[in-house]
């Protein structure tokens, strides 16, 4: 973990209420897809955890949805302004068990961390498939970006306005996978847990105090004991999850 004052290089809407922000600065503490950063927002006390979508040594991209005061204020930040960020937090996805045909399953703003993961898996030569779940056509983002990486992309919409009608689990039948990675709202993760046939990893969300393991604000119970979503997670293995 490092405290870094990043410079905002871009902060633009890419779907209704969904923004993409890119930052320039020392991102060397982010070493794995699935990690997150904790962002200080002017006028608010607690930092706001945001997942990392894409990263290099000196830049990072995040995608966030405006859901409250913190993200609303973040959406008003302009290029050139600085952001006080705790960088390189959490335990990201591990690639060891991905096999030849990993499947990435993302719902809504659970999609972004899977982009960095898809990039890493492609580098290893894997045949990557992605299921992206959204509520409706206008909410879809990053479909083309995944396609550009060479991933096979299936899109589901709850209202059927684009792609497969229904939830991400309704697309599972059209895939053949050796392992899976999931990120999204908890009901989606539960459904994925029930309906997948291989092992996999899940990325979780929780209200956090510190984001680096000190306050025990975001703990959960697992098969292997109590874990902190911010430090031991946010990525947990399928086999250790207790719902």
């Amino acid at each position, binding site marked *: *973990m490092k*405290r870094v004052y990043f410079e905002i290089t871009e902060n633009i809407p890419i779907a209704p209420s969904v923004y993409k922000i890119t930052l320039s600065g020392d991102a060397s503490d982010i070493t794995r897809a699935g990690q997150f950063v904790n962002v*200080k927002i002017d006028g*608010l*006390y*607690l*930092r706001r955890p945001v997942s990392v979508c894409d990263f290099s040594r000196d830049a990072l991209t995040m995608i966030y949805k405006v859901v409250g*005061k*913190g993200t609303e204020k973040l959406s008003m930040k302009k290029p050139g302004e600085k952001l006080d960020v*705790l960088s390189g937090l959490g335990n990201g996805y591990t690639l060891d068990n991905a096999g030849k045909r990993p499947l990435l399953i993302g719902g809504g703003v659970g999609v972004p961390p899977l982009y960095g993961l898809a990039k890493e898996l492609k580098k290893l030569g894997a045949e990557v498939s992605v299921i992206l779940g959204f509520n409706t056509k206008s909410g879809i983002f990053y479909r083309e970006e995944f396609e550009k990486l060479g991933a096979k992309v299936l899109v589901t919409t709850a209202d059927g306005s684009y792609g497969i009608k229904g939830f991400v689990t309704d697309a599972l039948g059209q895939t053949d996978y050796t392992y899976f990675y999931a990120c999204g709202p908890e009901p989606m993760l539960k459904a994925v847990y029930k309906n997948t046939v291989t092992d996999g990893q899940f990325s979780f969300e*929780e*209200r*956090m*105090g*510190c984001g*680096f*393991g*000190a*306050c*025990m*604000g*975001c*703990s*959960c*119970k697992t098969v292997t004991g*109590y874990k902190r979503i911010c*430090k031991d997670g946010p990525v947990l293995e399928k086999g250790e999850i207790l719902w």
Partner: protein
Amino acid sequence: MVNTKVTLCGVELDNPVIPASGTFGYGHEFAELYDINKLGAFSFKGTTREERFGNPTPRIAECTAGMINSVGLQNPGVEKVVNEELPKLKKVYRKKVMANVSGFSVEDYAYTCAKLDGCEQVGWIEVNVSCPNVHGGGMSFGTSEKAAAEVTRAVKKVTAKPVLIKLSPNVTDIVSIAKACEDAGADGVSLINTLLGMRIDIKRRKPVISNVLGGFSGPAVFPVALGMVYRVAKAVKIPVVGMGGVSSAEDVIEMMLAGATAVEVGAANLVNPFASSEIVDDLPRAMEKYGINSLENIIGRC
């Protein structure tokens, strides 16, 4: 050269800055970031007789200039703390640590303190009779003079280490509780623990915190804490450790002028992991600015 040294219950501290229990774990997360030996000491995570998970999540909420937590004393239990956490801590921290203890009965408190009495690394025992986040224990001992005194006596019986009783602000008269602890043999008192508070999610029309109520801390509570430290320090002869919203070297000086011998830093560590380290670095500058040669000389001098 200014002098930042203070003496707390017979143990000398290089400076009065002590990260508060519950915001510093058992030190390891911070030891990865800076040399925690620069601190005066730190108070480790509230430890109980048995392992505890604490309350269901969400257990954190944002507030104006502060936060609410309802962690509920998650900790691995005193056995693991003595056998695993303290030996691990020894590798990165050579000073005395303050052992923060909580319980659900007088016997619990005594049991846990007796276990910690044998630990050479422990410099003080801070007895938490003020946790707002547990039922049937914690704060219920700190809201009655009689119960607070009873816990104090029980703990004093089982340990030779200096015993500080950590007091709750959620009482009618914190001074009378502090005096009751002093009369029962406490070597010091520390205050304040968090203030009972609540937030509601308007969209869901539900409390943000799963446990409904939680403990409010952060800069917003500093004036409340300062006032209580001032009143208690005037009323007792034992040392007072001040805390509540402390976020800067100036806050530390204010707390000491109000009567604190040492000062704990809590929520600030969570939003800025370097907060305690920066306060230590900043103290000499702040002292020079205000013409303070020795911190020990300003305690209660307002």
